[in-house]
Structures are given as C-alpha cells and as structure tokens.
C-alpha cells in the first residue's frame, strides 16, 4: 500500500502538467472560438493530392 506515497505525488504532477497546459492554451485563446476548429480539421489536405505540402495553420 505504501506505493501511494509515490503514486499520488506522481498523479499530482500529471495533474499539474495538465493544468499548466490548460492555462497556457486558455491564455493563448484556444477556447475563444469553439465552432471553427472542428470544420478546419475536416479540411486538411489529402496527402498526394495537394500541390503544397505545407500544413494548414
């Protein structure tokens, strides 16, 4: 059972990483517009058909 002494802090660290990721993405405006990204994903180029290899922004 003493494994919790290691696992819980480890879990806390993972949570911390997730929280930091969330705060950073919120600050950068990832959650400002929730309507466009789903369609943007659909419009990704099909490999080989596109004349350009640059991915969409």
């Amino acid at each position, binding site marked *: *059972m003493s494994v*919790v*002494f290691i696992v*819980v802090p480890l*879990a*806390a660290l993972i*949570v911390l990483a*997730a*929280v930091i990721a*969330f*705060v950073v993405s*919120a*600050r950068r*405006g990832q*959650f*400002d*517009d929730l*309507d*466009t990204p*789903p*369609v*943007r994903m*659909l*419009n990704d180029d*099909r490999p080989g*058909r*596109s*004349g*350009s290899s*640059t991915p*969409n*922004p």
Partner: protein
Amino acid sequence: MTAADATVRASLQHATAVVCTHCQLPVPAGLIEPDAQDQFCCGGCRTAFAVLHDHGLDTYHDTTVGRDGPVAAEPRGRSFEEFDHVTFHELYVRRTPEGLSQVDLYLEGVRCGACVWLVERVPLVVPGVARAELNVRRSLARVAWDDTAVSLSHVARTLDSLGYHPHPFRGFEVEAMRRREDRAMLARIGVAGAIAANVMLAALALYSGQFGGMDGPYERFFRWVSLLLTTPALFGPGRVFFAGAWASFKTRTLHMDLPIAIALAVGWAQGVANTITNSGPIYFDGLATLIFALLAGRFLQQRGQRAATDSAELLYSLSPLTARVVDGDATREVPAQALLPGMTLEVRAGETFAADGTVASGRSKVDVALLTGESRPVSVDAGDRVYAGTMNVSSALRVRVDAAGEQSRLASLLHQVEDSVRRRAPVVQLANRLAVWFVAVVLLVAAGTALFWYPRNPTAAIDNAIALLVVTCPCALALATPLAVSVAIGRAARNGILIKGGDALERLAAPGTLLLDKTGTITESRVALAAWDGPEWVKPLVLALEQESSHPIAAGFRRAFDGIAAGEARLTTHVAGGGIDGMVDGRHVVVGSPAFVEARAARGPDVSTPARHLTPVLVAVDGAIMASAGFGDPVRADAGRAVDSLRRRGWKVGILSGDHSEVVASVGETLGLSRDGCVGGAAPEEKLRVVQEAGRNGTVVMVGDGVNDAAAMAAASVGVGVHGGAEACLATADVYLARPGLGPLVTLTEGATRTMRVIRRNIAFSIGYNVIGAALAVTGVITPLIAAVLMPASSLTVVLASWLSRTFPTERAS
C-alpha cells in the same frame, strides 16, 4: 502598379479560363495549381471529387459539362486602396509581438466549413502573409502579415478574388478586453476545477477510511495532500474573493465577497491547524469545491448579463444592417459595421442612414425625429450633416461617411442610456443595501454560532460557523433584482423600447393614470385625406397638379391617390397659402383653399363641406367646383386596441394635447374615452399642471414627444417618449419607444409587470433559501460541504429564473 498587383490581376484574368473539375465553377485565382491535372474551387469539391473517384463514379464529371451557367461569388475587382491608408492602419491594425501587422477582417460570403479551408490558404497564395484564421460563426478573419513584404490591400484583393469581400471589423478594443477577461476567468475556473476534483479524490479516500479504517500514516498523508492541493486554489483562483473583500474593507462597504473570503480564510486556517496537529476535520474538499462553484457561477452570470445589455446589439437594432457604398459607377451592399469614414453611400428615399455623414450630392428631406424630436422632415442639401438612424424621406442622396458605428451620434446616445441604466436604478440600489445588511447580520450570527458551540464542541463550532458563512451566500439576493432588470431592459431594447432605468420598470408595474399626447402619439402626425366628395375622374387631374408640390397637402393627395395614373401638368402656378392653378390634359384645374378656389371658379354641382375638424380643400375643373376634400391627422391603426388593452389592465387613460379641444374630443370619442379625460388646447404649462394634479393620486405616466411635452414628461412619475426623437426624449423621459404606434406601450406595461413579478419571486426565493439554510447550518444539520453545494445552486436558480422569464418578447417583432 506594383509587381504584386500585376500578379493578382493576371491570375484574376486567368481565373476565367480554369474551371473546377467537380462543379465547373471558375477556380479562384489563388487556388489554381499549375501542375495539377484536376483543379478545385474549394475543399468541398475536392472531397466530393475524391469520394466519387474512390467509388469509381467518375462519369459524374462527364455529365456535368454544359450545365447551366454557374452562379458564384464574383470578385468585385476593387483596388482596396483605403486598406493601405494611414488612418485605416491607425484604426484597425495592431502590431503583434513578432513584428507582424494584424487586422480583423469581416468577410462577406462566409457560408460553411469549406470557407475555412479557402481563407486559410491565403498565406500559401500571398507571400508575406503569416497567418489567416477564420472564425466561421462570426465571419471574422484574423490576418497577420509582414508589412515590408506585402501590402494589406494586396491581401484584401486576394480575399476578394477568392470570393470573400473583406471589411475591417471595428470594436476590437472592447472585444480584446472581453477576451482577456474571459480567458483569465476560464483559466481560473480550470485550475479551481482540477484542484477541486483532485481534493475530492483525496477526501473520498479519507471518508472511506473513516468507515473501513485507515492506518495513521496514510490518513496523515492524504490530509497533507489535500492541504497542499487546496492552498494554491485559495491563493490562485480564490484570490479574486480576497481582492473583493479587501476592496470592500478599504471602502468600508460590505460586499458579498467578504463572508466568502472570511469563510475561506477561517476554514483554511483551521484546516491547516488540524492537519498539523493531526486532529479534527479538514475543510479542504469543501473549500476547493466552493471556489470552483462560485467562479463557474460568476462566469455564467457574467455571460448572461453581457448578452443582455450588449450596446452593439442596441445600436444595430436601430440603424440598418447594410448600406450601399458607391464604388466608381456601381454601388455595392456592405454591412453597416464595415463602413469607414470617407466612403460614399447612396441612400435612397425611405432608407435609414447607416452612418453619420455629409451630403455629397442630392437634395432631400430627412426625418430626424429619432434624434431631435422634430416631427417634420428637415430639408438637406449638399454639405449638410445627416446622422445614422435618421431616415431619408424624399429622394436619393449621396453621403460621405464622417463617423460610423461606435463613433456615430446614435452610438454615443446609446452609451448615455447605458450609463444612466448603471447610474440610477433605486431598485438595484435597494437590493445592494439589503445585501450589505445581510452580510452584517450573517457575520454576527456566525460569530454567535461559534461562541455558542465552542464550549460544547469546538469542532462543531467551527463547522457550523463555516457552513453558515458558506450557505448564506448573499449572491442570490444581490443577483435577484439587477439580473431581472438588466435582462428585461436588454430584451425591451430589442423590441424597440429603450428603458433608462429599473426605477421606470418598477413604477410602470402597477396601473395608474396614463396621459397621451395626441399629435404623433395617438395620431400619425401627418396630413392625410380623411374625406373626399367628388367624381373619380377628377382624381388624376388633382394628382397631376400636386405631383410637383412639396406642400403637406400635396403629399397627402399623393399618398391617398397612390396607384392612379396622372397626366402631365403644364403652366402651373403655386400660390403660397392658397393653392395650385394649372392645365392638365387640356383642362384648367384649380386646387386649393376654399377662398383661393372660390375666387377662380363658380359653384358647380353640389359639393359637401368637410367636417369641422378637418382642413378643407376644393377642386375646380374648367371654372366649376367639382370636388371637396378634407384633410386631417389620422388616428393610428393600433391606437384603439392598445387603449382598450391598457384600460382592461386598470390604467386610467386620458388625452392631454395642445391641439384644438374639438379635435381632441373627436379623437377621444374614436378611442372610447370619457370626455372629461380628454384635455385639449393645453399649453405646455397647462400640461405640466394637469400632470402634477394627476400625480397626487398615484402613478402618472405621460406619453408624448420629446419637445412639446418635455416638462410634463419630466414631472410625471414615468415619462414615455414616442416619436419624439430619442435624443431629446431620453434627456427627460425614462422610456423611449423607437417603434411607432401605441402597441409598444402595451408591451412596456406588461413587461414591467412581469419584471417586477420576477424580481419579487427572486427575492422571496433567496430570502427563503437563506433563512432555511442558515437555520440548518446554525443547528449543525448541514456540513460545510453540503453548504458549498447548496450555495451556488441557489445563485444558479436565480440566474436561470431571471434568464428564462418571459418579461419582454424575446423575438424581434419586425
């Protein structure tokens, strides 16, 4: 012309030659892939083609040849020079940290997800553009580009060539501020939520340990974990409560953040002490949940309130959505929010100006009633100023835009209204005062609870006091009134009813005396043909003669005889104060006042004289009087119904007018009002006296226009401005009805009654909730955790009750 321009032009010309393999529409210049065999106009076509191809259905594309001509968004081929102008850059362009220029463009023609693909290809097509991101729902594209490599006009031309006509988007300052606030709030909620969830997990282990038994070291460990997790929540996201409490402490006013901050601080301190001594309960799970729930509740409430009182929405409900911009020889429709100073607009008769401006050419009459209260249209000529929200009445004008959107006079007026909504609302102030007392009482009771329980059970003392502080959140009480009022005012504005403050709603809720001005309020304030006695064949002759005149009577004839083909009038002479004399189809026609006509013609067939309250006009043809007409101010179509409905609601309706007593009496009769309720021939001073007298017996509402009735409206409990011009009205009146007729008056009183009902319901609920919650907490029935769950639930109930209440119709009745 730069090389880049030449490229665009060349590719534009090229565009006509290349068609989409799938749909046969021309491929936008920027998307032509020189080496590819198949060309596509958009992502949708590319996908559809791929699907068909994968299924071996390529023959579809052979059958599409020779279909009907394609209909597509045509590039307008504009130069967009103004996008490179210094003023444009000052107004709309910002610098990004990486040294790029950035602008928000409002794009016409954004329809679906395929547009995202197309717009976001711009960086590939135009070298120098770093990013192009499209928000589909709002049709807003954010473009970042390198100023030294490419000009914005080039980017704009490319977007145009893709079929999206770009316009600058204004209001990004407010937008940016809101976005920052929203982001910070969201980050706080996220942190608080993650912490709350994880503290809950630890709490779960501890609670189950109480039943199943738990070894000392493990229990201590989980208590320390809870402490270490909760502390950042308290000093990170929870800091807003301490900041609020500190501000309230500094200004010596009691704020609802104060008990929350005390609860948090006391609970945390006690929890830390208990963790260190390893005895007694820790409160960390409750505290973390409380912070999360409070923040989430506030976020929702903020969004709700913002949506309700968005000044932009107010503005756009009054001014038109689009304007016609003159562009060389052609005109094009442009969204009003995309107008820029310096553009030239074409405004046809009957249209509303979308921006403030100067008349560049043309001559017309403008109805400025919305702003000044002048009921007669004002003549404008080249060089005269016109304002957004006013209406061009007689003929087309070209107007150079001076100020648009937030800079226009209409916008500044609406800001004034917004300010006064914030400033004076005694109902709201009352609720705030109540909340202050509430906080004081709660603090005292909490101290009492702690003192009472301490000698008996120290743990219960802290528990119960914290439960009390948490459960009796004054949020619900403080929200009850302002939220209902702001939702109602926001909804009313969308219905064309501008309400200055919550106090007006409060006073309109219970019926009293309602005094109506006649001209412009009950009647349409225009000259209309009310009686006609004469043969039909005379009408075209009269119409021909009146065609040219700008006299109100002539306009009345034109309206009444609309649809009748008129001949050509020659040799016309206009006599001021008399009438018109001229030749129509070879006949000599005279139209004018009885004196004028009788001096030029003999009595013909028997023609009746119009009723006494009408203005008489006679018509003579070839020397004989053939017809008579009576002109009056017609009663509005909805007036009768509105007055009936108001009286059914218990309002005592009367007329108070400066017009002739006889006219007022006849109008009153039409509406079924008692004779002594209709006062005619009243000068402004007399009106003021009548209103003051009526005011002694309770609420008196004066409905009139902004100029003549200003004093009476200010003296009344509630002044309602109709047709009198918002600017003049709102200086004295509490409510302005932007829609003509008395119908909105009924909506207003009904809405006010419903709003007060919602407020009362909200307050009753919050008080009931708080009393019951407090009783349960003091007696120790509920724990701090349950209190923390109950408290945001009560706030949310109030928010939802206000939001869902049907105070004013939500749909815009057009």
